[in-house]
Structure formats: structure tokens, C-alpha cells
């Protein structure tokens, strides 16, 4: 999940994703959680991220809250948010170009001493 939403925006800007390997994991579908998350997510970052990871079903522009009642939409949202995992690759800061490598699904966000 981190691989497509939260990582979205660190330092104020969405991190670009470099994909080497994406895995899909089955996660239980939970509409309540999705509704809760919907308002907190930067939609554009999520849509771009899932497109890079090979899932282009999400609409480009921000949908309004009424779509939350549609089961079909929630399924797509669920898939993009929770089931797409970036297994190997990197997150790249758009501002500085700093690469954060992702190994086994764990992004390495450690900074060097001079970057603190």
C-alpha cells in the first residue's frame, strides 16, 4: 500500500516510481476503510502511481465523493491502493533526484549524514 499512496508525497512532492517488479497480493476488501482513506489521498499521485505500476483503470481527475457508493469503483480503488505492491525498484524524489531503493517491498528511506 505504501508503494502507491503514502510514498506519494514526501518533501511536498510526489515521489516518482521506478519499477523493476510489481507483485499483486490478495487483500480482504473493506469498504469502510476505503471510504476513510479516500479523503486523505492525493488522487493524482495515486492514479499516476498505479498507472506506472501497470494498472490504468483509475480515472485521471479527482472523482467526487458520490462514487464511493459504487461498488465497481471501490473495487478498483481497493486494487490500486492495497493490492499493488512495488517489490523491487526505487522511489525518486522529483526535487533532488535522490533515489530511495525498494527491496523486497521495503523502501529504504534512510538519509545520509549530510542530508539530515
Amino acid at each position, binding site marked *: 500500500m505504501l508503494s502507491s499512496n503514502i510514498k506519494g508525497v514526501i518533501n511536498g512532492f510526489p515521489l516518482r516510481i521506478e519499477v523493476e517488479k510489481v507483485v499483486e497480493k490478495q487483500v480482504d476488501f473493506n469498504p*469502510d476503510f476505503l471510504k*476513510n482513506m479516500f479523503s*486523505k489521498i492525493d488522487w493524482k499521485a495515486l492514479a499516476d502511481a498505479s498507472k506506472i505500476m501497470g494498472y490504468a483503470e483509475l480515472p485521471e481527475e479527482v472523482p467526487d465523493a458520490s462514487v464511493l457508493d459504487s461498488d465497481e469503483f471501490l473495487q478498483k480503488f481497493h486494487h490500486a491502493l492495497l493490492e499493488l505492491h512495488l517489490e523491487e525498484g526505487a522511489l525518486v524524489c522529483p526535487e533532488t533526484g535522490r533515489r530511495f531503493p525498494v527491496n523486497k517491498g521495503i523502501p*529504504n528511506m534512510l538519509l545520509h549524514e549530510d542530508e*539530515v
Partner: protein
Amino acid sequence: MSSRPELQAPPEIFYDDVEARKYTSSSRIVGIQAELSERALELLALPDDDVPRLLLDIGCGSGLSGETISEHGHEWIGLDISKSMLDVALEREADGDLILGDMGQGLGIRPGVIDGAISISAVQWLCNADKSCHEPRLRLKAFFGSLYRCLGRGARAVFQLYPENNAQRELILSYAMRAGFAGGVVIDYPHSSKKRKEYLVLTCGPPSMSTTTPTAKGEDENICSDDDGSEDEENQTVCISDRHRPRKKQKITKKGKTKSWVLQKKEKMRSKGNVVPPDSKYTARKRKARF
């Protein structure tokens, strides 16, 4: 050797492959961790409406505390500095998402997305300066500042911690207050040395009814909500971490001052430039009684 892991090595080195495995396979630690995270979740006081929340587990380690969160039906993101611990978490198929990161460098999570944060036995590590570039105060400031930003309004953060001494506790608390949090320390079982557990309960946003500190377990007069903090912590020196043995243990044996102790002392005095009698076979011998 001190029994506090904080005094032995930095976390990313202390929790190596061996230690991480040992930690997770010890049923005693697993039990304690589950109990602590259970209590932390209780203190977190999430609204009771069965909606799964997105929680943050700071210092998640091998995902022991995350397991408790998953049992309660919430989603979580775990942050830890030790790669070995996270590898163990992967093996155990932890449900949450894992990030390798240093909490002292800030959390780097988008503002307002997190519904609550817990941390089991982790925050006291921030008080150590393990590298020359580490400055505990700055690290605490970065940590609490970024945490405050990423929490939603009215969200709570509960840290279970083992402060080394009172000064450390105050230091942590004062930086939390500076970041804008309201809250205090809840101490469970304050009179028991083993069961005693401290929780730092913090609330985002302006003080209101919901920011009152919850009651502690095991005693009646036990909430010490020292919200006043310490204003002049700039001046006070906090014992950050000395990796030496306690003073008492270094001292002489029961027999009195041994020869080696005396020689050491004399050497030290010599190095200071004092006039010290030369060492001989009589050095550190007892005088005869008749003298």
C-alpha cells in the same frame, strides 16, 4: 555489561540478524510485546465504530506490535531502522507495510493521513547520540515535528517507553510539547519495578475533553501529568548515554584498596604532574600494627 540495549550499540547494529531472530523467537518477549501493544491501543482510544484506521507503528521491529493492530482490524505502516528486524517481519508475513527509516530524521509521511501512532519501547533510542552527527535534541525535534504533521486532527499517539532517568523523560516530554502535542505520561503499576510501564500519551490539536490523560492501571494516585515540562532545559545537561559500568562496580573490593588500584591511582596522579613516590615492593602494603 549494562542490561539496557540502548547503552550497548546503535539500534541498527544491536538488532542484527542474530538478535532480531532471538528477539522474535523468545516467547516471553512476544508475550510482553503483545501485552504492551494491547494496552497502547487501548490508550489510543480510537472511536469505537469498527471502521479500520490507518495506524503508524514507530519502531515496529519484526511486526510483533503490528500483529496486535491487525487483530483489531486496523491497517498499519511500520517504520524501523533495523533491516534485520524488517526481514524477520517479512518472513512472519506481517500485514502492514514496512519502511526502513530513521525516526530521528523525520517520518516523511504526507500530512494528516495517519489516524494514530503507537510505538513500543522505541522512543528512548532517540536520546542516544550514536554517530557524531547525531544531536538528540534535534532528532527529537525532527521526530515529534514530523509526527505532528502526519497525524490527523484529534489523532493520538501512544509511546511505551523506558526512559533511563527523569531527565530523559522530561526531555522527551518537553520536545513533544514543543511540537504542539498535548498530553502526559501514564504509568501503569508505578510501585512495581518489573511490571511498571510508562506510556506517553499525546494528542494532536488544541486541548479539549478528549485530551485528558487516561487513568493508569494498578494504582490510584498514579497519573503524573507533568505538562509544565521544564522551561530551562537548554541549561540542564542530560546524561545521554555513558557506556561505562556503574560507578559502584568500579570501586574497590571488600578487602580494601588493592595494589592494582593504588598503582593506577598513582599513575593517574603522575600524569597530572603531581609529585608521587616511586613504586616499590612496599607500595600498597599495610603498615604493621605496632607502628
